[in-house]
């Protein structure tokens, strides 16, 4: 006999960037909410510190690939292999507990990508069912409640913003200064990227003491980095309406005879299966796992997976790819660049974000100079692997190299998708996500063009040697970004969700992570995910729960 818990107003599955804002908004609106996370509820001040081996090599925060494997293949005909694709921490806080924390806003153009470009062969470009101006108020809410630092006015191509940032950026690092020098020589508008960390004297009054430079992929033991686990989760808990069930694995969303979701079945920390009913089910497991849970939740009404009438659940996946160029500098004439310092990025640009067809590709993305890392894993492409040559390379270049990275905006393709692996199961006995992906020709062209541009910036900054690292013939998931697997749109035949993240065919099912994004955008997705979740949760709290529904009217697009 399955145990049953008392019904609640809403369940939220996945307590990362998507689940956090929804938990806050719904519980503050007075609804009883239970939030599930498959992973533990770690305590930053007790569990995190600057231990490179633990966080970078021994995967303390990353999912254990033996317990939560994923498989990848490049097309329908190739064999899938187990690979830790897009490893986002599986715990309360999710990706916000390890991320470097780039928090740039999306651009006006991101929401109308298809209107601007038309069809692209082999890709499935689409507009979003809402526009930048609909999200702007929520972007501001997140910046001011979660805590983002930046320099408003420095990014010349940014869309309208209703408020500046609540915190100034960190000072530049030595390699950051080089980046500005190189950029300025070439006339590239560069600036401190918005980041999810605060600096001293921020307007939120939050202490910001972490200047250890143990940052990307590390947990932050202090409150310097904004994380869902230290902001929205505690705020939701303080309402008395929210409960966290950590180490609790949701294996199915249940559907009733009327085709509405009735709640979820989960496995509790002791392995007991329990049913939790709710009026509304909110999914925010990350685009890969949200799609997987929908595919796992098949029923008579939805034999191909929950809300999957269109057959699109899992399809059009986008992952970004983090690629870069590295420059080596001459230690005899340069000051040390200290590539191990900083809170990962130290200057970036959206100068190449908008389409310029002279480049041979459409779209673009954000670039930034970033730490090369601490000593074990310092990035040095082609580093000799052993012997005197390795030792000399470490000694000569650890402090005299820098890199300029790029968030590659991959084009959505229906064949790039997430489905259930027929052979591989996770530690809970459930089929794992299988990722099928192959870059589009536009992705390859964009990679080549932008990384060559990054090489130019390095050369302008004085690099003696430069090395490009391009996108290969498969995505590796190394950005830990996931989008687009459960598309939003206005047409139920061409999308799964509407403009509120609400499933077209299951009115009380909402997917509020990046799964809904029709295109990848060229910015890191976290800020957009959080603002999107807030907007969807606002609709749930103020419209859906009140028994109403609403459709957003989209004005025609004025092409400039």
């Amino acid at each position: 006999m399955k145990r049953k818990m008392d019904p609640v107003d809403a369940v939220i599955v996945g307590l990362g960037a998507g689940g956090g804002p929804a938990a806050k908004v719904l519980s503050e609106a007075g609804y009883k909410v239970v939030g599930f996370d498959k992973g533990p509820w770690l305590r930053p001040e007790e569990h995190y510190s600057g231990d490179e081996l633990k966080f970078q090599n021994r995967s303390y925060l990353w999912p254990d690939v033996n317990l939560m494997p994923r498989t990848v293949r490049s097309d329908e005909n190739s064999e899938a292999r187990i690979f830790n694709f897009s490893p986002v921490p599986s715990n309360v806080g999710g990706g916000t507990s390890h991320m470097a924390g780039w928090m740039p806003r999306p651009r006006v153009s991101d929401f109308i990508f298809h209107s601007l470009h038309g069809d692209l062969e082999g890709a499935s470009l689409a507009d979003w069912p809402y526009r930048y101006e609909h999200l702007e108020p929520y972007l501001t809410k997140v910046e001011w409640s979660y805590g983002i630092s930046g320099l408003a006015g420095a990014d010349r191509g940014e869309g309208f913003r209703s408020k500046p940032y609540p915190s100034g950026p960190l000072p530049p690092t030595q390699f950051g200064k080089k980046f500005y020098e190189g950029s300025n020589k070439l006339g590239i508008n560069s600036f401190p990227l918005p980041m999810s960390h605060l600096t001293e004297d921020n307007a939120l009054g939050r202490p910001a003491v972490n200047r250890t430079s143990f940052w990307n992929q590390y947990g932050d033991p202090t409150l310097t980095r904004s994380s869902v686990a230290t902001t929205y989760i505690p705020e939701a808990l303080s309402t008395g309406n929210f409960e966290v069930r950590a180490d609790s694995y949701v294996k199915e969303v249940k559907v009733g005879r009327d085709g509405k979701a009735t709640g979820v079945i989960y496995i509790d920390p002791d392995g007991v299966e329990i049913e939790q009913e709710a009026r509304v089910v909110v999914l925010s497991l990350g685009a890969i796992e949200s799609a997987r849970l929908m595919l796992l939740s098949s029923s008579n009404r939805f034999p191909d997976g929950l809300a999957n009438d269109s057959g699109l659940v899992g399809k059009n996946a986008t992952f970004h790819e983090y690629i870069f160029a590295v420059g080596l500098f001459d230690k005899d004439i340069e000051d040390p660049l200290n590539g191990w310092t900083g809170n990962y990025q130290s200057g970036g640009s959206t100068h190449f974000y908008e389409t310029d067809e002279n480049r041979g590709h459409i779209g673009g993305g954000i670039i930034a100079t970033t730490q090369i890392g601490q000593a074990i894993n310092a990035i040095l492409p082609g580093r000799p692997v052993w012997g005197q040559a390795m030792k000399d390379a470490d000694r000569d270049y650890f402090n005299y190299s820098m890199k300029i990275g790029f968030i590659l905006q991959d084009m959505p393709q229906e064949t790039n998708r997430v489905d259930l692996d027929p052979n591989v199961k996770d530690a809970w006995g459930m089929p794992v996500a299988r990722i099928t992906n192959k870059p589009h020709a536009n992705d390859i062209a964009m990679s080549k063009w932008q990384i060559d541009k990054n090489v130019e910036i390095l050369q302008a900054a004085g690099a003696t040697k430069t090395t490009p690292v391009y996108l290969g013939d498969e995505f590796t998931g190394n950005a830990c970004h996931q989008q687009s697997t459960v598309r939003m749109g206005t047409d139920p035949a061409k999308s799964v969700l509407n403009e509120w993240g609400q499933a077209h065919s299951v009115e009380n099912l909402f997917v509020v992570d990046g799964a809904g994004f029709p295109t990848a955008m060229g910015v890191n997705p976290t800020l957009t995910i959080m603002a999107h979740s807030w907007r969807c949760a606002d609709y749930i709290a103020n419209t859906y729960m009140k028994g109403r529904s609403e459709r957003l009217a989209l004005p025609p697009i004025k092409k400039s």
Partner: protein
Amino acid sequence: MVSKADWEIAPIRIDPDSTEKLFFTDHEWDTVEAAAARIMPTDHDPGAREARVIVFIDRYLSGIDYLYAAADGSGFLQLSGKDAHAARARNANMQRLYREGVRELDRKARELRAPSFAEASEQVQDQVLEQVSGLSKPVPVSLTSREVYYSRLQGNTDEDKSFFDTLCLHVRQGFYADPVYGGNKDQMGWKMVGFVGPKSLKDTMDGTYSTAEFFVQEYDWEDLVPGFKHGQESETAGSPGDA
């Protein structure tokens, strides 16, 4: 089930000067130490031998007791449940990889007429490592050549690697990891490359350890970002740039 959030801390510390072997036999210890010394050799700066990389590797291979240091370095986390199960299975594979790897090093050394890898000359040891790696000994980084690479997953776990690649990775780890894990004795790896690391892991938790001095101290955003003017961001923001 004990949640990962509640793993106990075993108050154990590793003495880098220890010669006590928790996993290796005497011969395996000598062999791996000799190989590590060719991978990160000693010159005017210390190498793997002085940094006690061998202690680091031996403790890691001994089981799952030395997998994760407690955040503050006061001991090591005691894994439980599924995590412990998966870690134990990986450890068993790793032990096998090293046992077989040492035999392979000896076999190849004997083919080159040395009594064993550990007793071979450095030249012969290098030849053996070339054979095991399948590549000639790495040459210095060239500033004139031009190479192209393709992206890969960040993070460097030691899964699904050959013995040679595993050993090279573990030598780097033992040379550069926080000294709490038994290697990088007296931070000699960090000192060699110029990484000014924390005195202890605990110092990274509360602001005691800071790298602020290594940032640019004097700057103005108006200089770094041409076209940007202070005040554009309005009075509600902090005061960026006035360092």
